[in-house]
């Protein structure tokens, strides 16, 4: 499932906890980084790695918005839509991205390049609007700067 260096990283993570199951979140994050999303096969592998039942992994994966049980585009954009951002540019950013990418909330562009998601407060309310591209935060950008950023990924 994973190359040897990833396996040793996962084993190191597992050693941080008195019970293997507690390594669930960090292990799932590494698996997701590797695979892009957490398909059934990957979830089953994680269950085996942590000596738990597959359903226990599934219960965790389906709870968290940042763990993906379905595939994404090549790049995932999360736009904060909570109050401070919405009042300070996020509504405009959201409308811009929807029309630029031609997708609705949660949708993936036809070329498979971008998935557009809404997020709740990203703890960047003072530098609104805040958004993530592949998990990295960007703040206070103009729409032109956003366009340039998306060109560059």
């Amino acid at each position, binding site marked *: 499932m994973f190359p040897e260096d990833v396996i040793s990283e996962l084993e190191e993570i597992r050693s941080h906890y008195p019970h293997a199951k*507690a390594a669930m979140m960090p292990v799932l994050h590494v698996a997701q980084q590797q695979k892009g999303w957490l398909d059934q096969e990957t979830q089953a592998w994680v269950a085996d790695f942590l000596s738990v039942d597959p359903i226990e992994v599934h219960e965790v994966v389906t709870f968290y*918005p940042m*763990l993906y049980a379905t595939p994404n585009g090549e790049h995932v954009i999360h736009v904060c839509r909570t109050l401070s951002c919405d009042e300070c540019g996020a509504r405009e950013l959201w409308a811009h991205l929807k029309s630029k990418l031609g997708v609705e909330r949660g949708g993936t562009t036809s070329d498979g390049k971008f998935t557009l998601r809404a997020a709740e407060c990203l703890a960047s309310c003072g530098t609104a609007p805040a958004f993530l591209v592949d998990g990295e935060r960007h703040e206070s950008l103009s729409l032109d700067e956003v366009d340039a950023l998306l060109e560059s990924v």
Partner: protein
Amino acid sequence: MALKMQSILSARFDKENSYHIDTYRADGGYETYLETIKGEKGTPEELVALVKESGLKGRGGAGFSTGMKWSFLPKGTDKPIYLCVNGDESEPGTFKDRQIVEFDPHQLVEGVGITCYAIGAHTAYIYLRCEFALGIRRVKDAIRQAYEAGFFGKDIQGTGFDLDVHVHIGGGAYICGEETSLLNSIEGVRPYPRNKPPFPAVEGLFGDPTIINNVETIANIPHIVKNGAEWYSGFGHPEDPGVRLWCVSGHVNNPGVFEIETGFSLQELIDGPCGGMKNGKKLKAVIPGGSSSKVLMPDEVAQVTMDTPTIRGFDSSLGSAGIIVLDEDTDMVEAVRNLMKFYAHESCGQCTPCREGTPWIVKILNRLCTGKGRQEDMDLLLDLASNIEGRTVCALADGACWPLTSIVKKFRHEFEAKVAAATPVGAS
């Protein structure tokens, strides 16, 4: 009380390489920790007493005395004791812990070391929300540098003290900031909040005694142990002393994080350090303590000082110190709808009043905002809230009700206007 800015927690935020151990050590960083584990700062019991005397209260939102919480750990237990640091920071309007983990992670890591010594813990987990990609890298690097310097591990510096510090990563769920949900998130089970009692100090992580503290709370510990309880309790309002990182967002010219002693005038913060209202607009409302606190009107903002006893007199709270400033153009019905969507989305679904009630609130607000509001909707919202509040496992549901009820009561005219403008049923 005059507004007194400080530069204690934020002293290095703007420095080059502020997050590197060399920068931290150049300012005397880790000296207090090393003295502490050698026993030079007193016994663990004395350290707990010191923190209690300092008046430090939790900075995660509930504002409970930190030293008091530590003193609830069972004495002489042979079970392992854990420290969990809460860096889930997801309360809308709050972005201070992020500054610490990104710009001064060593301050937090030293705080973890000293706290573990004081409470008798040998393992600590720093829980960070996964959206803090940069912060996670910085805290992991800081921990690695501290190990390399010989500050963590077994028999640290020959003192016999053992300590391991790890980072745990969340999955984008606000509820995991609730302390018992956080414990379940670490244990690798679905993170439903737990019933209390038992309290985590008695039965926490893996069933063992556990202390959970906010990032900013722990970042204060090196300063308090270094400078003493009296030094800290001398700041700010005598009944709620200290210095806090206040986050200001919304319609001001200069939003950001400001380190200020408690007890200052909220109006002065907006007019002074925040540079006044954006575009010269008038103030309409302030949500003063993160989205779960009750809204304040302009006349209240003009009078209130930012300390617990005073803001309580205005029926609100300091919460997580997330101050959201809203100007005259803000549609308050839309604003509260935005927040209620947040709570409905983040409800873990464990308790019926919260799981069913929060989407119902959103449904009513949706119809008010789309020209289908009814005259009875305002009372229905208040009634719903009164049936939710105090009837759930955790405080998420209460936190949804407080902004809702205060906004419905104080801005009823805006709701009325929406109803009056609504298309009557049956009209074409």
